[in-house]
């Protein structure tokens, strides 16, 4: 089952909860029968200042999203875009075989939040013009 590290992250996630003033929000899952992950980003000058998550899912899903947030905090958007499920898995140490997909899902959630940030930026620039 889960190792102590994963359980500790799950029990006490550092980045759980929504975020007021987030300027990039991404959501994955949500079709019937799957986990739902939502990532909130606060981006300033191309750097991710804050990253939060909300997750409906297993212990692994919660731990994966928390670690994803931890890994992208303080990083540039380009660096964050390169975050992979494998990076998350490495940080967690190990996961049961049937739970590894949650790391990929977390990666997709991060990408979706970054995409949302760019969309908002584009809209803001258009509005300004």
């Amino acid at each position, binding site marked *: 089952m889960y190792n102590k590290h994963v359980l500790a992250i*799950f029990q006490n996630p550092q980045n759980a*909860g929504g975020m007021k003033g987030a300027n990039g929000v991404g959501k994955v899952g949500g079709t*019937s*029968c*799957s986990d*739902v992950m939502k990532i909130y980003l606060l981006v300033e000058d191309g750097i991710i200042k804050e990253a939060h*998550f*909300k997750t409906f899912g*297993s212990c692994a*899903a919660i731990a994966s999203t928390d670690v994803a947030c931890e890994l992208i905090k303080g990083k540039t958007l380009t660096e964050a875009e390169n975050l992979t499920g494998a990076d998350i898995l490495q940080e967690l140490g190990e996961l049961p075989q049937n739970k590894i997909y949650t790391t990929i899902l977390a990666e997709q959630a991060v990408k979706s939040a970054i995409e949302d940030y760019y969309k908002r930026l584009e809209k803001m620039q258009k509005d300004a013009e």
Partner: protein
Amino acid sequence: MGILVLKLSIKGDTIVKKVYLDFAATTFVSSEVLNEMLPCFNTIYGNTSSLHSFGRDASAIVDRARDRVASAINAKNSNEIYFTSGGCEANTMAIKGIAHSYAGKGKHIITSKIEHQSVLEACEALKAEGYEITYLPVDENGIVSVPSLLRELRKDTILVSIMAVNNEVGTIQNLKTIAKIAHEKGVLFHTDAVQALGAIKLDVQDMEIDALSISAHKIYGPKGCGALYLKNGIKIEPLISGGNQERGKRGGTLNTPAIAGFGKATEIAVRDMFVNQQKLKAIRHYFLDKVKENIDYIKINGDPHQKINGTVSISFEMVEGESLLMLLDLEGVAVSTSSACTSNVLKPSHVLKAMGIEDEIAQGTIRFSFGKSTSKEDIDYAVEKLTEAVKKLRSISPITKAGRR
């Protein structure tokens, strides 16, 4: 007679209370049962198949256990009890064994959508052999539809297998009616009564049951032991051959200590049924009142009346079951989820699905099951931790009260 259950554990430098609320998964072995078993390990250790006195002494132990099991379910004859390795084997033996023996009459079997995996998988294996299987639907409370049974019975139907009590939601089925209908069409009736023994009265003669599966470890007996009741005159092909044990129906040296314990456990289960059930009923009400008082957006699954007292299934909206189980476990509270998670989806239980419960709600379902040692203090602690855990998970859930599907 004391009940020895560890209720504390050490985590780091703190002592955590331990509360076991998973009695439907398994029970501890009661001291009365354990005392019955102990001499069979090193004093009365003969092989029941041996002709000498050591063998005869072991046989006497098994005979007494067989009588006790037979009497607990009111079997006409003790030789209608076949000891097995547990409920799974008894179910498999009944379904495959009967199907193979009656293939000449027909190859159609009727069961339900909410059976235990061992029944479903035995049926699937038969399907691959060319048998036809009909899975009866259940209503929203998990009760098997009797009208659909009437519709589905055919000339080539050889067996109806419907569980007595569902393991996930605790719903009690209309066994007597189902057996009667099957018999009117000349069809045999098997029931998986693993969760029913000790919870409801089982009388194979009155209920017209042809075959019935039971297990020791659900009733404070040892693991790895169970029995199939098979009415005399019914043919069955053995699953395990290679010995003359159990009248040639089940090969293998008899597990004397476990069988001795099983015999005692069934005797106690029936002897104490009324008292146990009264206690469990009080615990159930106490638990449900407290949960309802502290947690909103919940759904209690199963039939409000036709149910056993020891099992409660609750869906907590906006929360996923496994994470709730793990949070409770970290606080020393042991429960069970209904959903089994497969590769890349959270797969809700087949039982809840058959009851028409939406996937997202089914995913947040926890089974709490109470037993002999469950106290009000246990419930107080468990509900306190449950309330905290649900609150915590809801605070980080992206599914909002307004956005619930």
